[in-house]
């Protein structure tokens, strides 16, 4: 699957503004990139941002392990009064987030 199309990548977290940390992701988020995603989110969380934003406009597919990682990060963010935003470019991903009610915990942005 991942050998075709564009290779998945997770960017280094960066500070967008006073309260927003951004993690950029692209390609297919599957088990092979889940550890990098988890690490990037961990690193971003250490700054205790008000908003932790996953910029995933260029993500075409997200598997269950990556969903689990996002959900866990959202729960941890909530414990510190923060929230997780997911910038979603794929209608299919958006539908899965809705179907699984994950969009109640994660703020899904267009």
């Amino acid at each position, binding site marked *: 699957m991942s050998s075709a199309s564009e290779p998945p990548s997770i960017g280094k977290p960066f500070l967008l503004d006073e309260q927003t940390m951004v993690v950029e992701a692209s390609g297919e988020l599957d*088990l092979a990139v*889940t550890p990098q995603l988890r690490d990037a989110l961990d690193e971003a969380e250490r700054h205790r941002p008000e908003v932790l934003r996953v910029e995933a406009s260029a993500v075409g597919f997200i*598997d269950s*392990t990556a969903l689990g990682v996002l*959900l866990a990060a959202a729960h941890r963010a909530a414990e510190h009064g923060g929230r997780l935003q997911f910038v979603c470019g794929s209608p299919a991903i958006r539908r899965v987030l809705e179907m*699984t*009610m*994950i969009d*109640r915990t994660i703020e899904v942005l267009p």
Partner: protein
Amino acid sequence: MRTPTASPKTDLELVEDFQRRGDESAREALITRHSRLAQAIARRYARRGLAYDDVLQSGYLGLVLAVDRYDPSRGVPLERYAARTIEGEIMHLFRDRGWAVRVPRSLQELSRRVSSAREQLAHQLGHSPTSEELATALDVSCDMVEEAIQAQRAYRSEPFPEPGDDEAGRSSTLAACDEAGFDVAEDRDLLDRLLARLAPRERRILELRYYHDQTQSEIAESLGISQMHVSRLLRASLDELRMAMRGAA
């Protein structure tokens, strides 16, 4: 032959459409089709003290996991596999929220008795005792023994081997891991369930690496992917198992 107006696709056909052809509408159809299963299981667990919506969310996550990872060649219907992964995710949630801490004292006590009885019986019988044997020895029901074992697992955390980075090193096998202190009889079952969380190809890679002792290059060749990719998937799979294991059964 099937006509275009024939009945809706079977689970197997949809799984094939999604897993082999990347058809995401097939994935969605499967999630929708089995969402009531997630709801039914979530309702059962929600009575134990967490909000239904939270439990259901975990249940749905388990359902997506089932759809992503289901391997038809194992001969288990998707529905049954999904029931397990849904329960697994829900149990995970309960543990995350400190459910393990609230294991009833009587159950904790029984867990300890089961542990020592197991050692003793293993010595007497010359094999790892079954739940029935444990139940008889402790004069409790088999269900209670099972529950005590489950409770125990919630506290467990066992190391997994690091993937062998060197091509020559054929040493770090899961079998070696057994010798290194795994309670084999019990943890086989646990390991099986953890492995079921992985996609067929990832499971296959672990199998080739650790049971058939193939090098990463050999595996890469037989699967038609790069050695780098094998290495990445091995590491990711082991990380995944480790995380699941840390959360326990």
